[in-house]
């Protein structure tokens, strides 16, 4: 049933993201083309300025859509009118919460990947992967972005495994931090749902209260990692030096939120 829930969850959310991703990539490509020497010389700087504005605006929009979708898909689809459908499907509350979490995480990851792709497309548009030849004093030499990229890639390769392992941990812990943050939002929404006439304000207060409790745990326990915030995760890793411990604590915090949300959904749901 989780598979079916995910299928319809992606269908519902994909409509929003698909268009934004496409436009973002196209704008990045156009921005790159507008920066080519031959185009730039023909007065494309103003177009480039517009494109750059559009590129960053769409990037911000995607970030906002991610946050809004995470909250709305939970509140409207599970605690609003569509909840009449979702909560009468023969599925466990844990499956409902898991489907929301997985789809949210997939969109967060996709947004990051599309962000990287957009930079690559911009470089393609710019012609960064093409070598350009310049004749200086009768001698033909290869110049341009192609050389810079080749040089950079060689440098990255020479850095060694430790760098890649650190980078991988930072990505894993960063994503784990995002997952905990999303689960914290879900738990806050379910706590807010208990306050019939003031659910929105109660949810917001619950979110900050949960974050405060995490902060207190941090101060009390002396373990930086319990902060659990997205930004703190990679730093926590650097500070503690033990990524497995950081990951374990993050998973534990996430599990507490997950169990709390599912329990409230099973035992305290009140859809009026």
């Amino acid at each position: 049933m989780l598979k079916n829930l995910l299928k319809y969850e992606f269908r519902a959310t994909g409509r929003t993201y698909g268009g934004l991703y496409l436009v973002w990539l196209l704008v990045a490509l156009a921005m790159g083309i507008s920066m080519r020497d031959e185009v730039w010389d023909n007065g494309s700087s103003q177009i480039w300025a517009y494109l750059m504005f559009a590129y960053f605006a769409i990037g911000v929009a995607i970030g906002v859509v991610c946050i809004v979708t995470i909250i709305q898909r939970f509140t409207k689809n599970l605690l609003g009118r569509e909840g009449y459908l979702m909560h009468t499907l023969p599925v466990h509350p844990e499956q409902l919460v898991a489907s929301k979490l997985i789809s949210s995480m997939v969109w967060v990851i996709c947004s990051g990947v599309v962000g990287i792709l957009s930079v690559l497309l911009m470089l393609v548009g710019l012609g960064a992967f093409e070598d350009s030849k310049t004749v200086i004093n009768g001698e033909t030499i290869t110049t341009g972005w192609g050389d810079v990229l080749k040089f950079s890639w060689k440098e990255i390769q020479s850095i060694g495994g430790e760098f890649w392992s650190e980078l991988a941990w930072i990505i894993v812990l960063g994503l784990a931090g995002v997952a905990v943050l999303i689960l914290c939002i879900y738990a806050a929404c379910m706590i807010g749902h208990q306050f019939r006439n003031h659910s929105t304000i109660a949810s917001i207060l619950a979110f900050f209260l949960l974050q405060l409790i995490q902060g207190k745990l941090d101060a009390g326990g002396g373990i930086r990692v319990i902060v659990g915030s997205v930004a703190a995760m990679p730093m926590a890793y650097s500070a503690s030096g033990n990524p497995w411990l950081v990951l374990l604590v993050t998973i534990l915090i996430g599990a507490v939120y997950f169990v709390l949300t599912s329990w409230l959904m099973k035992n305290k749901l009140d859809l009026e």
Partner: protein
Amino acid sequence: MSELLTCEGLTKHYGAKTALDGVDLHIGFGKIVGLLGPNGSGKTTLIKLANGLLQPDSGSIRIAGMKPGVESKAIVSYLPDADWLPGWMRVEQLVKMFGDFYKDFDPARANEMLANLELSPKDVLKTLSKGNREKVQLILAMSRNARLYLLDEPIGGVDPAARDYILHTILSNYSKDATVLISTHLIEDIEPVLDEAIFLKEGTVFAHRSVDEIRENEGMSVDAYFREVFKC
């Protein structure tokens, strides 16, 4: 198991207001039961409690002996009194969705009913009129081979011509060991199909009797009896 829906001392409050107050109900298999009462008498609350959408403050509610949960939801078909399906979906996508989630859903029956009511499967739900949306929702609910159908105001928003078809649909689509619980104000319309009637008054069960018994003992139709009981 002789009872499909059992309520014992079922109580539900909304803040200071009491929606249901110690309701005891025992409904068996193979019946069409009218859940009747004026606005605010607790009809929708009772149906939501049976679906697990609300939690009782005290007492219990059981469906085929089970507390509302995954197992009971697999045998209960629910039609709420409000728009509850995602408006962006096409009718055919909703048919597919119900088929994906409910093992007892019959897509062929749903498509046949859609065709009979001249509803296009390609239409996006939110583009349909309110009456047509209600028809689609009822078709989806009645295309399941459920044990218990909980229909909250199923004919309130549709035109009288469609009402006959819908009632005929309800009658012809539920299996004989299933029970249909219909909440409505339009008693005259549904009276011919009812086996039993439950009268809810201010959150309590005022009467739970067979329709024949009401007619014989009170000497009047269920509709007339309702008007007498709930006279303002």
